[in-house]
């Protein structure tokens, strides 16, 4: 299966590699992204609103491998910063980094949806 590769937020190289041309396997990972990331995004927004730093760290820690797998590289550094400085980082910076992560993950989620619609429905 040839996937549209001109994505802006995500990079599908890892997905293509693990799927080895098996479209069911590819869809499994795409669906999993659609199931897990929006839910965790909601949790992240809530935790940011409440300045619940421990929760922010846990959500980001949990999401991070899946985001790396989907090639969303430019949020890995801010995620790592939030993971390690979650207790001390000033709220303004925490909010700005959090909002940037949310923006990019919403973009990534839309791209994954489009790929599913275009290639699997």
């Amino acid at each position, binding site marked *: 299966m040839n996937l549209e590769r001109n994505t802006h937020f995500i990079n599908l190289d890892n997905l293509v590699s693990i799927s080895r041309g098996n479209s069911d396997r590819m869809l499994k*990972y795409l669906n*999993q992204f659609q199931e897990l990331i929006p839910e965790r995004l909601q949790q992240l927004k809530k935790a940011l609103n409440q300045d619940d730093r421990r929760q922010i760290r846990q959500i980001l820690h949990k999401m991070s491998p899946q985001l790396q797998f989907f090639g969303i590289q430019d949020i890995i550094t801010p995620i790592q910063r939030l993971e390690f400085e979650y207790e001390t980082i000033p709220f303004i910076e925490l909010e700005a980094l959090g909002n940037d992560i949310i923006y990019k993950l919403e973009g990534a989620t839309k791209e994954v949806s489009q790929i599913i619609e275009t290639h699997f429905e």
Partner: protein
Amino acid sequence: MSNLKSTSKPIKCIIIDDDPFIQDLLKDKLNQYFPEIQILGLGNNGQEGILKIQQLKPNLVFLDVEMTDMTGFEMLSKLDAITFKTIFITSYKHYAIKAIRFNALDYLLKPFDLEELKNAILRFKKNQKSNNVPVALQNLKLKQASDQILILKTQQGELHIQLKDIINIEGERNYSYINMVNSKKELVSKTLSNLEELLEDKGFFRCHKSYLINKLHITENPNGSTLFLSNGMKIPISRRKKDTFKNWFNNVVI
């Protein structure tokens, strides 16, 4: 297919992680590249992991460091016997990596680089007999860091050293010499920086580019630029470390 030589007996493994993505990814990679590995089951959390281990009796467990109900180490401590090897799985630079490395345990970073996975499986095959998890669990229980046992891999096998038995460590490029209370000098293939990272919060201080010292063995600190150890060694304190050494000495040693 794996380039690794397949053994006659399959390696029976369990994956314990509360993230379905990680479970699937590791399962697919193992199935694709390691035909000698048989995945007996999956555990979604620590509690399930305990049950699966007891029921399925694996040789190898891939274990998440941080799960929603407990940590990987907590899960292991709840088992009556540990008859399997563990490869911890974790995200980038988790704080538990230090404890994993201190005890010479194996770990993989999510989302699993294939070469690292191959090397971890190879290490598992080579070292099936040794199991450092019981020592690691004992170390985690100890209140005094000096009672903990540091495990280091050597060409001959493994060194188990109680921290209070280390007087100091001398760095020599990619190797280090550990001077012990019994006058032995052990050579290990770790840099002084590697060891500093493992020991800096356990009563050790890097007072010079070539020396890491154990607070328990300082006998004299006459002038702030040298110190004497219980084995009679005179150790220099580098000029740029003088102030930090002074603070450390006043807070940690005295």
